């Protein structure tokens, strides 16, 4: 615990793998999302802010920061401010646990997956409070919907996370990434995990409140739901928070199912050895960091593209249809597959199916 360590950690939290980097990758992913969404609809999307409109989300954010901040008279003003700040802080904290520049996150401990599960629930709670404090007639149904939606996507998302923990026998993200490195394949490459991956993506879509599950913010029904009364800085914070949540969900999916920031070294042992050897070397460590960051960015972008396509290709469901879909289909299926995994894991890890699983290995 030297002074250098402290300085590096604080710098890390503020800039490189921490807040600054996360915000920039969030804005980048929003641009990717908007551009791809527009392309699916046969138009070009943001074009004239920076190269191909890459600075568009930044311009939106800065403009919102500079705008007047109107607080309605009937609303709980301190409550609104509080929720906006906490709403931004939660995904930022959660992102510090995601391994980005290394196989371990900036913060990491055994059992951090539980903390992340708690933080995802907190986000929904903050949304509920945000709607409640703004005291608007249109926000009320939005908050009610957000609360009931929370109940139905939270269970599958937790089951999917714990299924991975069960498979890898580890309760920390670093352990999960390390398991995938040792096993020479991402967690996704086995049958039950494909189901959990799909369930995780669907539930993230619901958590992010994006179409077809944008029921709490449905613009054409309840005019943006819970965020209808927010303007200026607070709206900017909420929008940035939504982007960060998107990165967080995509990053968590990458870590749990796609091997985190690792890439080809899973299948090329010599490359992995070389990466391990340069980690201590000060000059070459930058190469490793850049490599891991690039891999992470590519993988999250792929997940964001998938989520974006989801958004474009379906109509919004009604709240009761979503609950029905969730409780009658997703949760029973997830529970069933979870039970299968429970028996499947020891079996495959020991002897019987280990050569069968070789079918899914690429190497």
């Amino acid at each position, binding site marked *: 615990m030297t002074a250098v360590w402290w300085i590096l950690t604080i710098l890390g939290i503020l800039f490189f793998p921490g807040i600054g980097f996360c915000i920039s990758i969030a804005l980048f992913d929003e641009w990717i999302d908007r551009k791809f969404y527009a392309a699916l609809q046969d138009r070009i999307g943001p074009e004239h802010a920076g190269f191909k409109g890459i*600075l568009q989300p930044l311009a939106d954010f800065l403009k919102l920061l*500079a705008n007047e901040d109107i607080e309605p008279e009937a609303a709980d003003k301190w409550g609104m401010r509080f929720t906006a700040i906490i709403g931004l802080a939660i995904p930022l904290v959660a992102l510090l646990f995601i391994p980005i520049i290394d196989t371990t996150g900036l913060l990491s401990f055994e059992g951090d997956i539980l903390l992340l599960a708690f933080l995802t629930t907190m986000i929904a709670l903050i949304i509920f409070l945000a709607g409640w404090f703004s005291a608007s007639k249109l926000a009320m149904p939005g908050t009610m919907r957000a609360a009931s939606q929370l109940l139905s996507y939270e269970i599958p998302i937790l089951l999917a996370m714990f299924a991975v923990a069960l498979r890898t026998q580890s309760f920390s993200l670093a352990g999960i990434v390390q398991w995938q490195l040792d096993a020479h394949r991402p967690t996704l490459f086995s049958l039950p995990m494909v189901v959990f991956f799909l369930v995780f993506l669907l539930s993230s879509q619901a958590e992010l409140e994006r179409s077809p599950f944008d029921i709490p913010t449905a613009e054409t029904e309840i005019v943006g739901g819970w965020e209808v009364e927010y303007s200026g800085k607070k709206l900017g914070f909420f929008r940035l928070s939504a982007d960060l949540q998107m990165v967080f969900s995509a990053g968590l999916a990458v870590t749990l199912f796609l091997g985190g920031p690792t890439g080809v070294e899973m299948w090329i042992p010599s490359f992995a050895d070389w990466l391990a050897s340069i980690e201590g070397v000060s000059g070459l460590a930058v190469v490793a960091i850049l490599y891991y960051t690039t891999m992470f960015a590519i993988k999250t972008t792929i997940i964001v593209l998938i989520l974006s396509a989801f958004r474009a290709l379906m109509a919004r469901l009604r709240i009761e249809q979503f609950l029905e879909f969730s409780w009658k289909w997703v949760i029973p299926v997830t529970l069933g597959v979870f039970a299968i995994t429970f028996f499947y894991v020891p079996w495959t890890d020991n002897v019987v199916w280990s050569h069968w699983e070789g079918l899914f290995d690429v190497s």
Partner: protein
Amino acid sequence: MVLQKIITWARVKSPWIIHVNTGGCNGCDIEVVDVLTPRYDVERLGILIQGSPRHADVLMVTGPATQQMKDRLKLLHEQTPDPKFVIAIGACACSGGIFRHSYIPCLGIDTVIPVDVYIPGCPPKPEAIIFGVAQLLAKLQGKDSPVITPKKIALKDLKKSIEEGLAK
């Protein structure tokens, strides 16, 4: 100074609009929606259409501000955070248009709220709407004001082109 420049840049690149119909005939509203769709796609200029006035910067107002919508329009204008801009789209919004001489005083929206840009036309083409927004953004950056001057064409040429059009 630098901060001011950055803020101006952000504002110019991301004008979010809210569309308000104050009792027009729907023609202008269809054209306003039309500029969002693939042919004109104003999202490339950073324009997003918003549902709530609190999220918007630019009010796109169509219609002649009928008696019942006047108060609503004023309310919406107050709900929009500063700095806000108002664009009057179509003849009705500019001056009342064909309804100006009705017994209900439809005299255009500038009798209710201050207007920054007028876009005449009944309804204006989507190109004209985008041009008007572009003029507003140019004004934000401190450029000159437009003055309408129809293209000067020699009378003979004009007549000839009309005859050609008829013969075509």
